[in-house]
């Protein structure tokens, strides 16, 4: 059994604002093993990005623990020992704003090398060349500026930047959501190759379930700060249990009849996604749930487990699966 790279224990992150407490992440627990890819899926307000940023240390947790390779890192990054900044990296969602438009690619890629004094034998320039080679970009790109290259290539540079410090764990926050399908394919291919070569562990955040079907080892669905369902990929898609999962799956536009067969029968979602400031009482999903029962508006369900590592949080399964 591979070692656990990351473990979240009941992680909570609340933001206190004038309009109320935003419970962005409200009791999130999962673990990721070495060389696994956990797909974290959810829509706006689900809290997936908050979880990612808390793991990175951009936010400090309100409650709960984050264990990285067994060590507790449950605080903001400035309070963490420096070497964790090397090990845990992130690729942000929007390549347009995750690269400083006023810095050349060479300067962008050199920064992590300088901070952590990784110069190798040939100095920083040679290291940058090596990084560009790793992601199959021509070395001349060093001198370009982010706005001169396409969105897909910018994202590849962001990936190269994440790799600069030789990390073991990378959070990918919707890395391909803003990109075209053919570019996405290239980048996913690159990510999977790199995972093999460099023994990387990924936390892949997305709203694209079709992508997770082909890339994730396990999938977790989040809604309004809580995990609804989590299971190994094949099991997850074979029998999606949570009503929200079924709605998500049936909303995906697919391109072939075979896929159409696999989707749960057309369940239309109703209503807007509530804001995390006004989380509905009881089960946070009950207002939109087609299978809602009386108990759902009063009591928040607990997570129950099935064999094969399939966990779900829903009153439908209170009496066991």
């Amino acid at each position, binding site marked *: 059994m591979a070692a656990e790279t990351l473990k979240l224990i009941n992680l909570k992150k609340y933001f206190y604002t004038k309009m109320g407490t935003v419970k962005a992440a409200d009791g999130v627990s999962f673990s990721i093993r070495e060389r696994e890819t956990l797909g974290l899926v959810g829509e706006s307000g689900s809290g997936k990005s908050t979880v990612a940023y808390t793991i990175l240390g*951009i936010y400090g947790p309100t409650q709960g623990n984050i264990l990285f390779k067994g060590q507790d890192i449950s605080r903001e990054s400035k309070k963490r020992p420096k070497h964790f*900044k090397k090990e845990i990296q992130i690729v942000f969602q929007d390549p347009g704003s995750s690269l*400083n438009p006023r810095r050349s690619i060479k300067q962008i890629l050199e920064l992590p090398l300088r*901070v952590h004094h990784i110069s190798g034998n040939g100095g920083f320039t040679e290291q940058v060349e090596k990084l560009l080679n790793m992601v199959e970009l021509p070395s001349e790109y060093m001198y370009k500026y982010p706005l001169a290259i396409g969105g897909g290539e910018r994202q590849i540079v962001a990936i190269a930047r994440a790799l600069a410090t030789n990390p073991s764990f990378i959070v990918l926050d919707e890395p391909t959501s803003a990109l075209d399908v053919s570019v996405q394919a290239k980048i996913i291919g690159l990510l999977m190759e790199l995972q093999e070569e460099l023994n990387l562990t990924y936390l892949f955040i997305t709203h694209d379930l079709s992508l997770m079907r082909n890339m994730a080892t396990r999938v977790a669905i989040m809604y309004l700060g809580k995990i609804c369902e989590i299971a190994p990929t094949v099991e997850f898609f074979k029998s999606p249990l949570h009503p929200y999962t079924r709605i998500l799956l049936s909303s995906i536009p697919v391109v072939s009849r075979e896929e159409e067969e696999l989707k749960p029968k057309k369940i239309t979602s109703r209503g807007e996604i509530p804001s995390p400031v006004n989380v509905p009482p009881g089960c946070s999903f009950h207002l939109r749930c087609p299978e809602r029962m009386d108990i759902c508006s009063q009591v928040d369900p607990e997570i129950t487990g099935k064999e094969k590592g399939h966990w779900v949080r829903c009153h439908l399964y209170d009496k066991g699966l």
Partner: protein
Amino acid sequence: MGKTKTADLSRRWEKVKKSWYKFSKNPLSIIGATIILIIVCLAIFAPFAAPYPEHAGSFVNFDEASMPPNLKHPFGTDVFGRDIMSRIFFGFRFSITMGVVVITLAAPVGITLGLIAGYMKGTWVDTVIMRLTDIFVAVPPLVLALAVCSILTPSVFNAMMAVTLMWWPWYCRMVYGIASSIKNEFFVQAAEVTGAGKLHIIFREILPNCYGPIFTKISLDMGWVILIGSALSFVGLAHNLQHRTWAQWLPMEASICLISGG
């Protein structure tokens, strides 16, 4: 090594050519740039460009006093018979010096404080810097300059110091606004996540994104600084007996006009 140097240079030259292309798209930019170039050249080469360089200092020729523009003196002459055009060319020197010195001192101070306050928004550093800025902004600019100049001995140097003091807060405020919004951008967070220090983030990540508004403000400010300098001159607070500015003899002309009734 030589190969990378030439590659480097050719890249920089490309950048210059591209910038020139963008700049020259608008004919007004070319016209403006030409005017400024002419003025700067006249200022630098005043002793050669001016037809009567000796008129710039003390010179008297009452025969040709107060003449209207004519062929010999395109801008006419003043009460002492000195050629106005030559004096203007020498006056450019003072004004440009004033503009350059004031902005060179005020802008970096204001920008640095604005960057620091913007990046540390919400902390006590932000509060202290911005309240300090508020204090300087609250005093009417000319009053501040007059106060400073009258306390100290009137001189060009002191006038420039006074104007600088009232100028830096505006840079601070402008950059504060930009910096506090940029600090939430992904690329700043990416740098923080990697472990970059505050100095790097402020000057290498945030500052380059402020260049646009900063340079716009600098180019507009030049004009204003020169005007304020002239205003101080007009009330006699900026000169010592050697140097003359344009506004210097205006009071004299004004009073002579009043006395002579014309």
